[in-house]
């Protein structure tokens, strides 16, 4: 920038090199996007084809004619409406449990002083290191002793006893509330319960929504829990229902794919509407905040 011995050719300048680099990255990202999106597009396009068109080689990229009726037929072939309502019920209960209980516990770890807190919090974190599968068999034995098999209790009740990851996430957020604010509320006569519900929760709305969305996704997509505990077809969730549906329609891919699209739809919609909350969640995990 200061002394230049000769005026550089245009392709030697920093700005040109930088622009070339950007073009290269852009090209790479576009190609990658096509690769990433093609399965989704393939799912939708297969769901709209006739069985004959699916079997044809080479495969067509757009359906010859859009078979919207595939969706209606797939949905009616199995009690999907019932399964969707079951899933919705479980999911709502799990989300409520996760949001209320984890924020309650997280507030305790973030803003109340008591002996053994750090040790207990380390214990919370270390439970994240236990593989879920290790817990599954003993929990099954417990719930079968309680005669909870074939009910939703094993799927819902644990959500009301805290989840290590969510506690960690919310604690990081609650820690950002200044202690002076809590002290001021206390002087005004509020107890911790009131401070948690009326001050901390509204203040940390984004974090609470993040937990709500992540637990919605978790409950909606849960396969293992219902597979283990639910035997009655009437009580099935969408995930188990879809697995059963796979057995009924065999390789009728137009039905399988249209049912799959419908099962994924709520998750996709929530993702597009609440995108930023997914990002909040991972920011906190890396400790950029708090």
């Amino acid at each position: 920038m200061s002394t230049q011995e000769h005026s550089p050719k245009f392709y030697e300048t920093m700005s040109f090199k930088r622009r070339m680099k950007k073009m290269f990255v852009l090209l790479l990202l576009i190609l990658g996007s096509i690769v990433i999106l093609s399965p989704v597009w393939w799912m939708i396009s297969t769901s709209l084809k006739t069985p004959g068109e699916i079997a044809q080689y080479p495969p067509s990229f757009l359906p010859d004619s859009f078979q919207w009726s595939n969706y209606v037929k797939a949905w009616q072939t199995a009690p999907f409406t019932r399964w969707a309502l079951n899933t919705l019920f479980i999911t709502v209960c799990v989300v409520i449990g996760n949001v209320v209980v984890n924020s309650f516990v997280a507030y305790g770890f973030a803003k109340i002083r008591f002996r053994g807190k750090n040790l207990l919090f380390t214990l919370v974190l270390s439970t994240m290191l236990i593989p879920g599968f290790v817990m599954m068999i003993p929990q099954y034995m417990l719930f079968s002793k309680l005669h909870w098999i074939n009910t939703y209790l094993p799927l819902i009740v644990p959500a009301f006893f805290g989840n290590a990851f969510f506690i960690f996430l919310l604690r990081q957020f609650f820690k950002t509330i200044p202690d002076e604010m809590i002290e001021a509320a206390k002087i005004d006569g509020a107890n911790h319960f009131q401070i948690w519900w009326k001050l901390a929760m509204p203040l940390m709305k984004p974090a609470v929504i993040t937990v709500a969305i992540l637990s919605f996704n978790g409950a909606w997509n849960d396969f293992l829990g219902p597979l283990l505990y639910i035997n009655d077809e009437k009580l099935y969730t969408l995930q188990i229902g879809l697995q059963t549906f796979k057995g009924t329609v065999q390789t009728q891919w137009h039905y399988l794919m249209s049912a799959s699209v419908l099962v994924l739809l709520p998750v996709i919609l929530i993702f597009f509407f609440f995108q930023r909350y997914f990002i909040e969640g991972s920011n906190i995990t890396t400790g950029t905040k708090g």
Partner: protein
Amino acid sequence: METAYESAKKNKQAAQKEVAEPVKKYRIKSLRKREELSGFLFISPWLIGFVALTLGPLLFSLYVSFTNYNITSKMDFVGTQNYQNMFFNDGLFWTSLWNTLYFVAFSVPLTTAGAILLAVLLNQKIPGIKVFRTIYYLPAVLSGVAVYLLWMQLLSPSTGLVNTALSWFGVRGPAWLFDPEWTKPALIVMKMWSVGGGMLLYLASLQGVSKAMYEAADIDGASAFRKFFHITLPMITPVIFFDIVTSLIGGFQIFQEAYVMTENGDGGPVNSLLFYNLHMWNKAFEVFDMGYASAMAWFLFVIVLVLTVINLKFGKRWVHYGGGDEK
């Protein structure tokens, strides 16, 4: 009504008197006690859950692993019989362990490297970068049976998208889920699709790396390559470490994919998709041999624990915690 009000008023006055009178020291002590009590009240849901749903069942299953428990009738102490059977009499145990190790050994490094690379690309100042981030993250939110069904279709040997795309480059794609050599790579390919989930973690930490370091390196004329290996990578090692620890634990949990993508969870061609958890599942919930399954669960726990401890130990050598970075 009036009397109640009056007595309440009296009580309040009495209470105020009581608070005002005792020495300061006592008051502080009781306040601290109340604080302590509410602390335990707040964490009590987790504490109860930990004892009843984690610690209790875990210890119970340790005991069960030394019995022939089958949920309904018997529960006799059999010593180390289950463990002996596991190591010496069950060939499928070793098959399932090998399949799982194979999957973890390839999927963890590949997804980690993929996520870092993607995060670096998505950390550039390029028009529309937010749209790209959304696109790459999308597969991470899609999961469950629907996605496995989709990949069964994509990996279909003759009419699937993957082999069709390969054929454009003159490559004859394998039979994927039907060829025992290719079943596990098929699942790894599927895992790579949702690498955007890990990417988001790295992206957040890349944005935390201070610009000043890159500017200093620019003045010294460092190449992009050098900057990546000497600034970027060391600065994000804490996240790499976190990612490796959690995805190792996650990798050992592989089950659903194999269960859904094979016929009735039978382990696929030549048991090539019989993962550890699938074998454990069959023992526990198909033949109800809870003793044996608990022994398997505990052995898995030990493997994961040992790997995590090794990770934590070696982590200290290569993980760089930036100065002034509070936990």
